[in-house]
């Protein structure tokens, strides 16, 4: 048993190596669509078709990657950072800078948070999303400065309004090209005199600001807490020593510590699967490539459930827990379950009917069905499609206990 657990942990933690599954994931090269064309011309219509088409392709591209990865940790952590540095295409508009950001988060998903924070503070999609292209010395726009400290690195209440004001000055002078996500420094627009941020006085630029906040002990606490919240529990506190595993800001070390903590296997730490997490889990189990499904239906259902990749509701990221458990969401979930099952490989249920219900639990990674669910599913042994459709909507599958 102990050896099995260790082997599982090793598999879970695998990353940074060639991933055979991802080799079969379709590539996506998005064009630079340039600035907005003149309204009400044929170029205008074509432009918006490219925007919406690219947006849909981008979502499908990522769902495929999440599903096809043989070692899913890197995509899983990319998903975490996407929710952490939550940036929405609803304002960025162009899919290309969203993909650029996503690739940066993927490259550094299990790397050093110092690097990720430095890249993110100069990420074009994030800069546009949080109005930094309109942050001027004579009249600072505080949006990026505040959220960078509050939501991305330190947490609420860990800085003052004066720190926000100063940090906004450190972020002046950066110009973003909305359609590519390129960010460049216009030195004449940058405030270069010494300013004081979080007790440190120096001439700060964006990288210096990011390095400062990440160097603070609070940053280790904050990121550890966020990872705990999204991976283990939003109701219990992380073990007191968890942040110590993030002293050098190595994300892989922190994830490693999380997976090896006893809390990892404590059934009291239940989690509700978000719609995308639920969907990708189902696709992985049933060997369904998301791009093979009806995209119109799929993206509509995901949006009705409240979760389309690249379109979080606000800079705070996705909701969590109970928020996902509404009857209204379930009706869309059921429709998606039917979509996935119709395309899925049901061979794991090719067992004697007396063993089908247990085989279904093992297949979907459910530790144990309740008597309620086991009895309900047992009524469908003559129809594996019906059994697994219902199983994907069973309480024990919607929640990981």
């Amino acid at each position, binding site marked *: 048993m102990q050896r099995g657990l260790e082997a599982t942990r090793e598999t879970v933690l695998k990353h940074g190596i060639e991933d055979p599954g991802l080799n079969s994931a379709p590539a996506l090269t998005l064009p630079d669509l340039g600035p907005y064309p003149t309204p009400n011309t044929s170029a205008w219509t074509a432009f918006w078709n490219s925007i919406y088409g690219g947006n849909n392709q981008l979502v499908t591209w990522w769902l495929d990657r999440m599903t096809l990865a043989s070692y899913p940790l890197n995509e899983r952590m990319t998903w975490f950072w996407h929710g952490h540095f939550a940036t929405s295409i609803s304002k960025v508009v162009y899919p290309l800078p969203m993909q650029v950001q996503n690739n940066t988060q993927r490259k550094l998903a299990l790397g050093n948070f110092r690097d990720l924070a430095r890249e993110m503070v100069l990420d074009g999609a994030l800069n546009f999303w949080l109005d930094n292209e309109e942050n001027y010395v004579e009249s600072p726009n505080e949006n990026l400065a505040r959220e960078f400290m509050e939501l991305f690195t330190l947490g609420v209440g860990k800085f003052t309004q004066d720190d926000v004001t100063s940090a906004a000055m450190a972020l002046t002078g950066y110009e973003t090209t909305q359609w590519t996500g390129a960010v460049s420094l216009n030195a004449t627009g940058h405030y270069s005199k010494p300013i004081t941020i979080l007790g440190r006085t120096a001439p700060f630029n964006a990288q210096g600001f990011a390095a400062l906040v990440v160097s603070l002990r609070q940053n280790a606490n904050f990121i550890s807490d966020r990872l705990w919240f999204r991976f283990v529990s939003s*109701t219990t506190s992380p073990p007191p020593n968890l942040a110590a595993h993030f002293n050098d800001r190595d994300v892989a070390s922190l994830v490693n510590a999380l997976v090896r903590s006893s809390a990892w296997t404590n059934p009291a730490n239940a989690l509700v699967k978000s719609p995308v997490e639920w969907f990708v*889990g189902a696709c992985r189990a049933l060997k369904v490539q998301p791009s093979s499904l009806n995209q119109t239906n799929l993206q509509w259902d995901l949006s009705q459930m409240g979760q389309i990749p690249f379109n979080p509701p606000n800079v705070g990221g996705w909701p969590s827990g109970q928020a996902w458990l509404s*009857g209204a969401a379930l*009706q869309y979930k059921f429709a998606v379950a039917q979509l996935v099952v119709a395309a899925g490989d049901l061979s794991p249920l090719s067992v004697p009917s007396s063993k089908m219900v247990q085989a279904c639990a093992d297949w979907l990674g459910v530790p144990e069905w309740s008597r309620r669910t086991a009895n309900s599913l047992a009524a469908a042994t003559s129809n594996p499609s019906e059994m697994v459709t219902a199983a994907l909507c069973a309480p024990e599958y919607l929640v990981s206990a």
Partner: protein
Amino acid sequence: MNDCLMDRRRFLQWTGAGVFAALTTQLSLETLAGAASSSPLPTNTPILVIVTLYGGNDGLNTVVPFTDPNYHSTRSNIALSGSQLLAPISDSLAFNSSMPQINTLYGQNKVAIVQGVSYPNPNLSHFSSMAIWQSASLTGAITSGWIGRWLDLQPHNPFTAIGIGSTLPPLLVGDKSVASMVDLGGIWPPEGSGATILPSLGQPSSSDVPLVASAATSISDLYATSAVLGPLVTKSPSGSFLNEQLSLVATLINANVPTRVWEVNLSSFDTHAGEQEYQNALLAEVDAAIGTFMTSIGSGSRSNDVTVMIYSEFGRRVKSNASLGTDHGSSGPVFIIGNSVKGGLYGEQPSCGSLDVNGNLQVTTDFRSVYGGVLEDVLSTPVGDVIPSWSSTVSVQ
């Protein structure tokens, strides 16, 4: 329990975030559906409709203190004047010209404007501000929502509080019970492959941990609510997003659905840049949706029962920025609208010339007092039962 599966599932099944528990005794589907359809909301039962404006609405450009010289000098690039304002409602205030219908309702004494509302020492954060407003707790010690706690005091019934959408907002989540959600796309019992099994998965099981039990409840609630509401939600609403939500609420109220609290919302009030253009469009959307809603309600039998409360997590900075926008601020107005409301101005309008250390408006009314008035006047519940050790109320009825 198989530890290996447990372990692997965490990543391979893409598990999401955790939660607080919410569960109470469950009734059978038949009982719930029967109770709802056979038990319409009794005549004259007050109904609360909560409108959440996400992002921090700029109150100063909503109800404009047009005689305050500091209003014009500190935000000269976005200050409203002349034709950008409607006829004054007092010697110092006028509505943004994007709000003609609410202005008219104000003239009919159906709109209470509670001024300068926030919580003590505003921290300027969207998320902690909204958490404070939705939980009615300053410290984060209480994570349940204020309507959720009110719901905890009522007999369990999935119709008592309903949000529009599919994702539960925190204010509708109690310690024991949660509101139901009805999606704009309608609510229907699942059909097709697997559908015959699904109802039985909504039954309680003694082995359920609280979140799994909540998931089961969501299944039974889908059947209970779709049975009653499904046939009522078939009309396709039109207009803006908020208008669609409020049209659905009006339809269901007029159908005597036994619901005491409704929640709808509109996002994108975070106007750091280009504020006039964006905020005016949003306020026009709010105005049109409220106007249509009040007309719909007025045509039914509940016109005197309905109270609408409109709030946002904070107002915005008095001084504008160079991007023609405003950064995060503190207090703002709360609107309470209804035929039974005693219209007018409540509380004190904070001055643009007497700001706090961060350059923000003073807080002149605590939001918990506004909730207190709504809880006692509309929901007939002492405020202290929902907001521990709070007793102050602003009554507008």
